[in-house]
Each structure stands twice: as C-alpha cells, then as structure tokens.
C-alpha cells in the first residue's frame, strides 16, 4: 500500500490558527520500517493522524493506497481506510474498557458486525502476532503487566489485519525486557507479515537498528528524509533542531570529525567493534 504526502499543510482550527504542518511532501516506504522523528511540537502526531483519516489536511493531498485524502470534505468509505491503516496511540492500554482480552480485541470488529465465530480465529491470530498465547483470552486486560497490556492493545488493532501499522511512541514506559520484546515484535510484523510499519518515537537508541526510512520533522516542516546514511550523515543540523541522535551515531560522527576515519553505518556495538578493529 503506497502512502504519499503531496504538499500537505495542516492548520489547527482554533482562534490562533496555528500551522502545525507546512507543505510536507514525502513518501512512506512500503513493507519497511519508517521512523518519524523530531522534537516535541514538530507535528509528528498530526502527521500520522492524517494518514488514517482522523484529520483532513487543510491543503494538499495524501494518497493512501486507493484513497485520496484531501480532495473532498469527507472521506468516502472511511471504514475501509481504518481496516487498511491501523493506528496505535501512545499508552494504548488507556483505551481498555472490556472485561476480557478477548472482548477487548474483538470490540472494533464486532462493531462492524463480524460474527463471533469468524472472529475467534482472527483474535487468536492477532494474539499470536504479538507473541501471546490463547491463555490470555479470558484475562482481565487491566491486570496484565505493562508489556502485556501494550501487546494486547496492539493486537486489538492487528485483528483488522491492516496493511499499514502506525505506532505512536510504542516503547514509552516499558522496562528493558518489554522494550526489546516490542522491537522483536515490530521486526516480525515487517519481515514475517509483510506490514508497512510507521513509528513515531524519541527512543532512537532502541529503534535505530531496525529503521529503514527516516522522516525528520521540525516545527512543522520536513527537515530530512531518507535512509540511515542520508539522514544521519550530518548530525549538526539535527542537533541544531534539538533532536537527540542515537549514541552510536554520535560516536561514529565524532570519529569521522576528529580522525577523519569513516567507520560505516553500524547500528550495534558488536559491528562497531569490528569496524574499529579493522580501522585501528
């Protein structure tokens, strides 16, 4: 499913008329992990809410598969869009309101009048996708651990089998083990289930190793766009906009700056060590 932003602007409809996004033109790469980064207030949340039609652009168009958002006042057949593009908000476990995991996951689908017998298999499949087994079906979602809650919330979106999954700050508040678990889950979704993943996050140290495409926003404008090498080649610009880069990137940049040695675009310490070994 292709997603493309063409000259998209969004103005917040209040008395002050704040322009939150300014003429953004960019693409989301299919079946890859796209990371949206930028300081707070840069428009990241608005950006993703435009993709699944929660917001309509003030100017410009967004192409999402066969949908074109922005050419009319209302999106025709918006339910299909919600099926194709799943959006998981920050602290998604806050939306829980059913007594069992099964009902929580089934909720949206029941709303669309899916019969329960068809749902059963879908629910179990979505639980499997997030790494939980059937034993969780009758648990009270509020009694699970933080990591498990997060997974159930994601499963409640995966049950729609969306082609695109958007995650807003998926790792925030989780402990180390759960964070690692979540990163593995995201990788599985891309590799195994061929989903296009879009992640908004500050947590670059843990997500950098899995990012394929980066979209950097600052003050509503597109600052940089491209793969790891392109975006993190010149970190001075990013730092100027108060963006904190992964520590491994800082190190590699420092080595290049001070000793004029290019180590490469390693994303973990083991590879970095090998690169250093070769270059010492």
């Amino acid at each position: 499913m292709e997603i493309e932003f063409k000259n998209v602007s969004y103005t917040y409809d209040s008395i002050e008329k704040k322009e939150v996004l300014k003429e953004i033109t960019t693409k989301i790469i299919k079946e890859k992990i796209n990371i949206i980064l930028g300081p707070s207030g840069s428009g990241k949340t608005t950006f993703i809410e435009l993709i699944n039609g929660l917001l309509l652009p003030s100017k410009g168009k967004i192409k999402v598969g066969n949908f074109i958002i922005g050419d009319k006042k209302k999106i025709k057949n918006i339910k299909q869009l919600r099926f194709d593009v799943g959006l998981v908000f920050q602290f998604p476990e806050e939306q829980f309101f059913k007594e069992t995991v099964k009902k929580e996951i089934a909720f949206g689908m029941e709303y669309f009048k899916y019969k329960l017998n068809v749902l059963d298999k879908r629910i179990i499949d979505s639980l499997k996708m997030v790494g939980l087994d059937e034993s969780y079906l009758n648990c009270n979602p509020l009694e699970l651990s933080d990591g498990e809650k997060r997974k159930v919330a994601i499963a409640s979106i995966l049950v729609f089998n969306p082609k695109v999954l958007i995650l807003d700050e998926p790792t925030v508040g989780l402990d180390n083990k759960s964070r690692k678990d979540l990163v593995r889950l995201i990788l599985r979704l891309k590799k195994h289930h061929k989903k296009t993943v879009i992640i908004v996050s500050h947590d670059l140290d843990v997500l950098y190793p899995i990012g394929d495409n980066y979209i950097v926003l600052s003050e509503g404008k597109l600052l940089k766009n491209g793969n790891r090498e392109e975006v993190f080649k010149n970190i001075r610009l990013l730092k100027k906009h108060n963006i904190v880069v992964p520590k491994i990137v800082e190190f590699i940049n420092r080595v290049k700056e001070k000793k004029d040695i290019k180590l490469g675009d390693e994303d973990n310490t083991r590879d970095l060590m090998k690169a250093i070994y070769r270059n010492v």
Partner: protein
Amino acid sequence: MKKIIEIKDLRYNYGTNVVFNGLNLDINKGEWVSIVGPNGSGKTTLIKLILGILKGQNHIHIDNLKLNKKTLMEIRKKIGIVFQNPDNQFVGDTVKTDIAFSLENIGLDKKEINKRVDEIASFLKIENILDKEPHLLSGGEKQKVALASALVINPKILILDEAFSMIDPYYKKDILNILKKIHRSKALTIITITHDLEDTLLSNRLIILDKGNIVIDGKPIDVFQQEKIIEQLELDLPFMVDLSLKLKFYNLVDKIYFSTNEMVNHLWK
C-alpha cells in the same frame, strides 16, 4: 558517612502480592543513588513508602527521624519528589502558582515566597514561562516546573521517579545537567529511579531491584561488569560501557571509557 535514609526490615503487601519481604537499605548523605529494575520490582512502592503515602510494616528513618504519623510532615519537608507523569503533578493554574504551592502550604510570608520562586525559576531557566498555564507547556517544560516545585522547599533529599520516561530526550539531558550541578554545589542526596542505564552514569551508586529484593548494590562501573545479572534481566548497558567492554575483550582498550573523546584519542593516537 552520615546516613540520611535508613530502611530496616521493610515489609509490604499489595493485596495478596508480597512486594517487600524484609528489605534493608541505607542511603548516605550526599549520595546519588540510581535504582533500576523491571516494572513490578517495587521501585515506586519503595518511594511511596519512604514518603509515607503508603504504610507498611517498617522501620524507616529519614535524617534521624523515625517515620510515623507525627513526623510525616516534618519528613516531607526534607524531601522533594518528581513523579513520572508531567500532568498529574501540576497543581497550580500557572507555573508560578504551582511552584509556590508548597511554600504557601507551610505558611511562609508572601515576600519570601516570591523571592524563592524567582530564584529557582532563574536557576532552572524557566523565568520566561512563569505566567504560562500548564496546557500550553510541553511535557519536558512541565517536568522542569515539577523539579522547581520540588527544589523550592530546599529539601535534603531529591527523588526522581522515572521522571524522564514521558518526555523528549532533549529535556532529559537538560534536567540531568541541572542535577549534576546541584548534586555538587548543594551536596544534595539524589535518588533516581529509571529503566535506562544511561541515566545512571552520573550517580555514584547503582542498585538493581528485582521482585522486591536488592540483586546488586555498588558503584555503577562495577555493576556494569556483572555480566550474568545484566543478561538475566535483559538490561541494556550504557553505550560507551558496552563498547568499552567489547573493545577491552579484544585488547583495543584497557579500561571502561565514559568519554567519547578520550576513547577516540586512545584508539587513534
């Protein structure tokens, strides 16, 4: 060294869950202690017990005062706390009112309150937002205000309970630098609760808590080299430490480097 927090045989149950089963912990005056552990290990419960928000079976002494109903207020005067959620600890209708809140509560006179608020706002560089309302501030700004509110009572102990997990890393750096400054200048005892071992580099003591028990307690540099425990709890070592240990294994460096510049200069003389 003088002990500022003494915890002996702490026991606490949450419903049927046994959170603490006889915890002992002493913190010395002027120490910066980091407490790390998985969710559910009891970190926040420990803080709430120290503050007297929860009542357990304990012998807790803060600055030589035994914690009980009568000493509760006096003890709270000595402790400043910053919790995790920037919104849920912002009490005032403006930044100024929020910082002044605790001073108003203890009945200081108006002049003194204004003086202290201005001083702490200037120190934390938040004078420009003193009249702003909370819903116009970012999470990071709100946490700085929470820090100001905690410091304005001139506490002896400052506790930060996962204060960085919901904010932009830019503000985290900002606040950590401020903590570094005040730890030195005011000889403040600081306790930071965090998941991120990177945050523990500035502290002089690292405690790892798991299921209500202290698994390890020592200098950060020593704790980082406890491979088994780090692996078992799936903790991520701080970047420079991780890299140093790997390079050390291949004899490219001889010790753990915390500074990028130092390591780079050593590797490529």
